[in-house]
């Protein structure tokens, strides 16, 4: 019998829009320390629960609690705090630089600093990240010179990418930072390929793939999962769920389906969900997954639950599509504040030292910026030669490109 009921069309909706009062009561947040820590060789089928919870270490009082605590010593934590502070100040200055017309475009990490900064410390030299545009913390935390980053952002004469690439789409073989693509998700499966290559070569280096919540909808997310699963590639597959993809909330990518981490289950890949604003939790989970990969136990999916506190990019104003105060209402707090509180709580830090550190870092960033600007910015100073436009299309310039280069007069 046909059921003659009419179908209706469902479109997920964040519910709250500009003017509404933000409300995150639907986000279930387990207590810090409450989620178990499996052995790294535990079978994926035995740890499905971890995709539906949130691993957290720092509690409200700034104490590190539970089985995931203790992956870093105090010195490293202070270092981590400085990385995050550096990234935030760097971002703020570059946002301003963009408004001043010194570059065409910028994307910041506001609220998400812990994810890339803490992850980086879990890697070894030689490991390779395949990042999106929102993981500059990987560079900061690995000591990549800020002036180089700014040279790239300004597309000036010293830009290591010779002015060819959009700002912030950095690349550094040495710092384990694969050339960032403007096309979403393509890097996710490339990371798997790199990891496969390492395994094929009997190497011990591993790879990390990165993707945003919105970008998990892209097809290459699937390709990455399939190949990682089939060949048990030594790769950590990072999903940064910052709740927003430009103007669309994560429900458009996730449906009302549970979690992005759970996508790992269909591939037999263990999947962990972690408080992305908890530096300690991010590091502990990353370390676990990295060890698993390095022990030849295969891929791990990690979903970082965080919040994009700023606009998508300098071209975006979130006031057009979400409540203004939503960012402040985000229940997982601010990663810098939380780590700072923890360090103070354990007596390793103080408000004064924080203020001092902030001033010092600001000076460092400003110095870097001055150095970069003394070379040039987008529209002033020394810029890369138009000749650069024709280089690196191929290893050797073919005749037709030489002719074209001559036409421009170089």
């Amino acid at each position: 019998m046909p059921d003659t009921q009419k179908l209706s069309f469902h479109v997920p909706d964040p519910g709250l829009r500009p003017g509404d009062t933000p409300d995150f009561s639907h986000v279930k947040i387990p207590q810090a320390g409450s989620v178990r820590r499996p052995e790294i060789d535990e079978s994926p089928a035995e740890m499905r629960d971890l995709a539906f919870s949130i691993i957290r270490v720092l509690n409200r009082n700034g104490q590190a609690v539970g089985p995931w605590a203790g992956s870093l010593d105090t010195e490293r934590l202070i270092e981590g705090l400085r990385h995050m502070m550096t990234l935030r100040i760097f971002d703020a200055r570059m946002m301003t630089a963009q408004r001043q017309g010194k570059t065409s475009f910028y994307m910041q990490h506001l609220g998400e600093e812990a994810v890339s900064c803490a992850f980086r410390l879990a890697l070894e030299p030689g490991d390779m990240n395949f990042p999106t545009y929102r993981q500059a913390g990987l560079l900061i935390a690995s000591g990549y010179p800020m002036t180089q980053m700014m040279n790239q952002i300004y597309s000036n004469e010293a830009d290591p990418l010779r002015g060819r690439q959009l700002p912030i789409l950095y690349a550094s073989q040495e710092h384990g930072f694969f050339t960032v693509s403007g096309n979403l998700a393509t890097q996710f499966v490339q990371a798997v390929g790199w990891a496969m290559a390492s395994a094929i070569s009997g190497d011990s280096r591993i790879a990390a793939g990165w993707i945003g919540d919105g970008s998990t909808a892209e097809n290459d997310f699937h390709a990455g999962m399939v190949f990682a699963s089939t060949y048990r590639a030594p790769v950590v597959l990072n999903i940064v769920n910052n709740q927003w993809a430009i103007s669309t909330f994560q429900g458009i990518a996730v449906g009302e389906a549970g979690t992005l981490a759970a996508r790992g289950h269909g591939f037999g890949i263990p999947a962990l969900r972690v408080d992305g604003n908890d530096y300690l939790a991010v590091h502990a989970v990353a370390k676990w997954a990295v060890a698993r990969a390095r022990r030849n136990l295969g891929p791990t999916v990690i979903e970082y639950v965080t919040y994009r506190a700023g606009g998508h990019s300098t071209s975006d104003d979130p006031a057009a599509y979400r409540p203004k105060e939503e960012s402040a209402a985000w229940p997982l707090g601010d990663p810098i504040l939380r780590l700072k509180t923890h360090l103070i709580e354990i007596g390793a830090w103080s408000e004064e030292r924080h203020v001092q550190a902030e001033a010092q870092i600001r000076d460092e960033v400003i110095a870097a910026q001055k150095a970069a600007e003394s070379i040039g910015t987008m529209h002033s100073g020394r810029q890369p030669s138009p000749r650069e436009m024709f280089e690196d299309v191929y290893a050797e310039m073919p005749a037709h490109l030489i002719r074209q280069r001559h036409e421009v007069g170089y």
Partner: protein
Amino acid sequence: MARMTMVEAIRDAHDVAMARDDRVIVFGEDVGYFGGVFRCTAGLQKKYGKSRCFDTPISESGIVGTAIGMAAYGLRPCVEMQFADYMYPAYDQIVSEAARLRYRSAGEFTCPIVVRMPTGGGIFGGQTHSQSPEALFTHVAGLKTVVPSNPRDAKGLLLAAIDDPDPVIFLEPKRLYNGQFDGHYDKPIVSWKKSELSEVDEGYAPIPLGRAKLRREGRDVTILAYGTMVHVALAAVADSGIDGEVIDLRTLMPLDIDMITASVRKTGRCVVVHEATLTSGFGAELVALVQQECFWHLEAPVARVAGWDTPYPHAQEWHYFPGPPRIAKALQAVMEA
């Protein structure tokens, strides 16, 4: 008759199409609540509801794939790729599916969809916000390819594209969205409202696909262009003082070969202009056709002015862009040949 920017005209075309035909459905990334990163669909969700204008997951293949299914059902989806540079994940669905549905099923299933996408450079978007991939569509039998150069055409051609019984690729030169642009990037931006081309017919007024438009009569040389390059070509003509005849192709497939042929037979010279990379660009096809149809009238080789055979660079944008000086130089060369 109202004066509109190109964005407004595109929005208006959507509005008119949705109002007159329930089957018209609009979707894409950030297209619903927010109204598109270039605002081309702003207000449509509010007016027509979430069932007819909605946000999608970031999956170009999913957008075109579901649009094809909807078209097979009987709807008329008009979807947006956020940038033409991001259409590649959907390329299989466009080429292998949309383009061949009618053919392979002998008309049992058809695919009246429109795939809109912003193209071209001029916004310092670098290699992934600047591409002009028209030649990747014109090579594919079963697709129609449209490139408007002004608000008036954008509205009329989009209405025709939505009505069309076959899949239409609708390429929107993003540099023209919010103002006129003739390639003199160092001059102040000129509002569309100052141009007659922004006078958009009210209501339902489609402009048929497949007809080029003469933008400037001239006796010396025929210039074939589309999209942004129409204006750049006109500027080059003005700058060079050469009496160029400028044809705005508007539709690349089907192509208005008759107007092209008549013009080149008259002038005896031809320069083809586009922003996409030179090699295997659509200009190659135009040259091939012109020399075939007008060989005995040609007094000089047909010249091409196009983007260099490199990715679109960021900082060197204006060295890459085939601006008025490069076109003027080609006009000169063709005249002196």
